[in-house]
């Protein structure tokens, strides 16, 4: 029976009751599609957020990204920091009726690390996962790791018996030649079950009446998800009331959407940091008028670039106010920015620094930029080109779709760039990831350190601190070391952090929803009138 007929029936006597406790259908549109239901196939925020409805991890992240018990009720860490013991929640059942036990955790750990999995980093290499009893699991690490569980909110636990029964014990690899059962079906322990799934067309989630959490915050009976790639259509669908929630709202439409009165745009800072990088490795830049030397090896040139950029103009004009300028390469939600400020915008000072460095007339340099990856990425780069022109640097901008862009600038393309714009969200929600992946020296080809360090910024002191940070369990000491490392990198002007872009979700006024800074749209907290 639909909500309407219920209301009609109740109109005579109980009109007041209707509309409050009714279970609702929520319709949601996102610009990207849900590509696979196998939670180990794609390592990407939107997919993880979708799969967070049918699946759950050992931990959860709350509304403010705080770590909460999930399928594990509690955990203890041994004194040497190498053994983690998790007490699993009892009485939990998978959607298919299977009991959730330690076997499922051990199985999921093996599956996540199997070839073809894209979430291999969730469980560190060499870790032994041992079943102690049906509801206790021990993780035995090779070295202490205080952030072992940080990413486990998106390491979803699968049922061992279900996977074995349906021939899905191996993760669906990128090169699968036949579809696996797990990529088209889901069997988790979460608040919603997958009712139907047409890849790229529509996915329907139904409420799980047997969820272990007996007092869910949401009042939904169903979530209908449709991908709508076209910005204009997505906004129109929200305005016409055909969908209740959309993500994202293009920033040029925010004012118009808010002006309608029936929908509103929730905005907030996102965890992703947008930054500029300058090649500091090559002895001669790939694309520059300066021959025989690399101007970016000179800290004065890097500082000049930094100070030539008018971050406030980028914020107000390009981002229409929806950006938070950042002095650090990490969002303030993940590491506090206290004690850090951006080097002041000062074109005269920048010009002087360039002159001191031996480039009184500036020079020419090529710049690479994606134009369909981050919010207004292409426009940001154009603005940067204009700002650098003021200090005499001529930038040849090459803005292209992400497919080509990433192929050119990342490691497989041989870091083929001189100056570029990139965005980064640490997958672990922790500073170590930033220090290791984008600020670590790339000089050891055998190590994965600095693989995303396209600029090749390198300071051995940062590396030393990074190695201590990964094993330090004392939070105060650890934070002090992180701060020191970030300070060194900031003083080196190794990168030019720009801002954290804003999230923009379009939400019908009938729906109450919590916006999380990691841009994961979770309807466990959604209440619809």
């Amino acid at each position, binding site marked *: 029976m639909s909500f309407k007929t219920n209301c009609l029936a109740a109109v005579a006597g109980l009109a007041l009751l209707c509309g409050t406790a009714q279970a609702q259908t929520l319709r949601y*549109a996102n610009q990207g*599609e849900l*590509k*696979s239901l*196998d939670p180990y*196939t*794609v*390592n*990407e925020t939107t997919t993880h957020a979708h799969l967070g409805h049918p699946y759950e991890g050992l931990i959860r992240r709350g509304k403010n990204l705080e770590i909460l018990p999930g399928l594990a009720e509690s955990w203890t860490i041994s004194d040497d920091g190498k053994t983690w013991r998790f007490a699993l929640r009892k009485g939990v059942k998978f959607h298919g009726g299977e009991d959730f036990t330690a076997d499922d955790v051990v199985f999921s750990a093996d599956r996540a690390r199997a*070839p073809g999995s*894209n979430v*291999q*980093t969730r469980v560190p290499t060499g870790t032994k996962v041992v079943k102690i009893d049906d509801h206790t699991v021990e993780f035995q690490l090779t070295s202490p790791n205080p952030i072992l569980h940080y990413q486990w909110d998106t390491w979803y636990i699968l049922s061992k018996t279900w996977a074995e029964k349906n021939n899905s014990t191996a993760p*669906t*690899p*990128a*090169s*699968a*030649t*036949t*579809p*696996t059962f797990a*990529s*088209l079906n889901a069997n988790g322990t979460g608040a919603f079950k997958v009712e139907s799934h*047409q*890849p*790229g067309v*529509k996915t329907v989630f139904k409420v799980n009446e047997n969820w272990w959490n007996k007092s869910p915050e949401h009042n939904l009976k169903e979530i209908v998800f*449709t*991908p*709508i*790639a*076209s910005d*204009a*259509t*997505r906004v*129109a*669908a929200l305005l*016409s*009331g*055909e969908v209740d929630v959309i993500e994202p709202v293009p920033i040029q439409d925010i004012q118009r959407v808010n002006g309608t009165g029936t929908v509103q745009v929730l905005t907030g800072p996102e965890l992703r940091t947008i930054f500029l990088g300058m090649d500091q490795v090559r002895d001669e830049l790939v694309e520059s008028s300066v021959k025989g030397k690399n101007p970016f090896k000179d800290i004065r040139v890097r500082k000049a670039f930094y100070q030539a950029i008018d971050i406030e103009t980028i914020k107000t004009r390009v981002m229409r106010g929806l950006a938070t300028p950042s002095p650090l390469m990490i969002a303030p939600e993940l590491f506090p920015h206290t004690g850090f400020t951006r080097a002041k915008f000062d074109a005269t000072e920048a010009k002087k620094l360039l002159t001191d460095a031996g480039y009184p007339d500036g020079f020419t340099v090529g710049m690479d930029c994606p134009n*369909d990856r981050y919010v207004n990425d292409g426009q940001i780069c154009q603005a940067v080109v204009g700002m650098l022109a003021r200090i005499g640097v001529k930038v040849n901008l090459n803005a292209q*779709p*992400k*497919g*080509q*862009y*990433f*192929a050119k600038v*990342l*490691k*497989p*393309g041989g870091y083929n760039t001189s100056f570029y714009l990139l965005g*980064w969200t640490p*997958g672990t929600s922790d500073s170590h*990831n930033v220090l290791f*992946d984008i600020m670590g020296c790339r000089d050891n080809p055998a190590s*994965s350190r600095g*693989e*995303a360090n396209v600029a090749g910024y390198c300071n051995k002191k940062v590396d030393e601190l990074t190695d201590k940070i990964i094993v330090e369990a004392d939070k105060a000491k650890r934070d002090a070391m992180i701060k020191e490392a970030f300070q060194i990198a900031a003083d080196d002007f190794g990168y030019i952090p720009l801002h954290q872009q804003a999230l923009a979700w379009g939400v019908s006024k009938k729906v109450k929803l919590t916006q999380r800074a990691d841009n994961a749209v979770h309807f466990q907290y959604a209440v619809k009138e």
Partner: protein
Amino acid sequence: MFAFILRRLFQSLIVMLSVALIAFAMFRFVGDPVNQIVSIDTPQAQVAEIRRSLGLDDPFLVQFARYIWNAARLEFGVSYQFRLPVISLLGERAPATLELALMSALFSLVVGIPMGVYTALKRESWLAKVFQAVSLIGISLPTFLIGILLIYLFSVTLGVLPSFGRGEVVRLGSWWTTGLLTVSGLKALVLPSITLGLFQMTLIMRLVRAEMLEVLRADYIKFARARGLKTRAVHFGHALKNTLVPVITIAGLQLGSIIAFAIITETVFQWPGMGQLFLRSVQNVDIPIMAAYLMLISFLFVTINLAVDLLYAAVDPRLRATVGAH
């Protein structure tokens, strides 16, 4: 005749092979598919492993030969983004595209022919001028703009028609889905069909108008009038009938382009068809889908052209004669 058919078939095969080769060569410039599969912080060793397992490390010609060999056996591989066989993805979406194309073709004929007749008969009336103006819009405005304008008017402002999707669909048989049997399905078809069919409609309207004007000057129309036939019978029984031959030829040929150019309309209306799948695949560097779609479309055009050629040969004895002389 047999030699003629054989030669045309052979030519068609060459065309399709060339399309495949050009498409395949272009894929080298659309970017790295592996980056779309992995996350930015995926270890590079793992990235290299995925690239190797997809066979992307092999030389261009090896990849191409492997592709043709598989395509010949109707194996188009597995989509990088969905991890599903391309053939089943395209098959699942074909009904949506075909239904939309058919409805647009129908719309363009049902609306275009009367409009063309009217503008030919009442050249000076204000309504004919309005039709002419509309046809100008249909010819000159880009499809995506027409689509967005229609959405804005009928979905957002008036709230009468849906802005995206196919509505409720009914499953017929094992794989065909149709929106023609439900109210929401029919409503969902209106705006995309108009958007997609508008260009064809104006084309047909202008064609019918020009042909009608031509035919109306012909002697047999004068004789028909002289015989004292009713105007209605002259216009529709004699004039219109004779204009329809080229119209049907054009409409038939255009059906291929409607299917091929549904890409934009499908994207604007989030229509779950093959064109939308193709465009998303370009963005996601999903080479197996792109390749299969291009092959499919080239097959469509080759088939239509072949059919037309054969029909002409059957209809026109002169053509047959020259063929025989070769």
